[in-house]
């Protein structure tokens, strides 16, 4: 019998420490697979900032470095400018990328830095225990919006991909989801396209991935895909926004 699917060799021999059903695992798996397919698993470098993303380095076989919360746009810029030939992914949470790090994220995009941002949009602050994120849905209950996110005073979810697509420099901006096998495959294609742009022609790319944080959603992981389809993707439609 032939093995037609198994764990990527770019994944390390340690099971992830993510919660059951956490789609951080899915995203990292896809990055590993793409790196193998592009033959860059020894070259790729990943920035893994604070947030549940920070654990990534332990689970992959390529080089990685940490970043203060929200600053991958800057650490990534410094790194890539000094190592222009090294393929680079900024692997960020939505809190990291769109809240504390919004200026770094937008300015790196605006400068057209030659790297790829993969942002995990799980609509909460996972690592710190489920506080509201800029992406939290209207009415969604979190530990800092116990009555549900109110429009009055906290506004609407930030759709970062749309904002970045407004800028001129970025070459590829897309939102994908990880809640069905079909979407997972589309997400993988998007990551691959982004890396190919980076390697072949150079330029900034942004891949937002809709993900589940069952722990902080207080939802059975099994029920997450349906909730994502029915509720989350209504606010965050998937598809290419640019490029």
């Amino acid at each position, binding site marked *: 019998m032939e093995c037609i699917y198994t764990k990527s060799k770019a994944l390390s021999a340690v099971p*992830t*420490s*993510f*919660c059951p059903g956490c789609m951080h695992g899915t995203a990292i798996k896809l990055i590993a697979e793409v790196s193998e397919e592009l033959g860059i698993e020894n070259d790729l470098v990943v920035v893994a900032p604070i947030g*549940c993303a*920070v*654990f990534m380095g332990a689970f992959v076989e390529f080089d990685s470095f940490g970043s203060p919360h929200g600053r991958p746009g800057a650490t990534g810029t410094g790194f890539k400018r000094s190592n222009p030939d090294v393929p680079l992914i900024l692997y960020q949470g939505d809190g990291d990328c769109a809240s504390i790090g919004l200026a770094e994220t937008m300015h790196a995009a605006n400068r057209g830095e030659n790297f790829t941002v993969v942002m995990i949009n799980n609509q909460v602050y996972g*690592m*710190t*225990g489920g506080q509201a994120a800029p992406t939290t849905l209207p009415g969604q209950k979190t530990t800092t919006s116990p009555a549900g996110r109110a429009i009055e005073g906290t506004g609407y979810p930030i759709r970062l991909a749309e904002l970045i697509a407004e800028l001129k420099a970025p070459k590829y901006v897309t939102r994908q989801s990880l809640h069905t096998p079909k979407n997972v495959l589309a997400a993988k294609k998007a990551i691959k396209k982004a890396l190919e742009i980076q390697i072949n022609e150079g330029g900034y790319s942004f891949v937002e991935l809709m993900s589940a944080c069952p722990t902080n959603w207080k939802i059975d992981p099994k029920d997450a895909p349906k909730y994502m389809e029915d509720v989350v993707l209504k606010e965050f439609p998937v598809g290419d926004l640019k490029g």
Partner: protein
Amino acid sequence: MENTYLLAGFGGQGVQTLGQLLTYAATDAEKYATYLPAYGGEMRGGTSNCTVKISDEPIGSPAARSYNYVVVMNLPSYNAFKGKVKEGGTLFVNSDLITDAQADEGVKLVEVPLMEMAKEAGSPVVTNVVMFGLLCAYAGDIDLDVAKGTMLQKMAHKEKFIPVNTKAFELGVAKGQEAK
């Protein structure tokens, strides 16, 4: 008299609630009591644990090098904390998940079929109430009536939860008295 407790298990097993219950009950029993959870990112996918101290005097550190009573509700907790029992102390293991448990020398081992007992009480989620009853009866820090009152006040927000929690508590107490 100061008794120290270390309670460990995995996420859903309610060890934090158990620790808080002990603290509330001890306070209601006019003792000094502290509860200190282990928390945060490093707990992800691992074990959850907390420490409780109950004393007649003001309490200094809410943690200790080793404890009078160590409760381990799953295997990783057993591996991590079985060495944390004070000499003369007791190690309580959830025998439904941990088979072949062994205690260090000078430490008493109490095996508790926690999940089974919870089921017997009427709900798989009341393992921590079983353990609460057990610890109250075993350690003798807290008057059992006070303990029961506190437990019902904190755990039985709805009337319908009273019977199963009461049953769980009593099963625990019985087991605790038996194990003493």
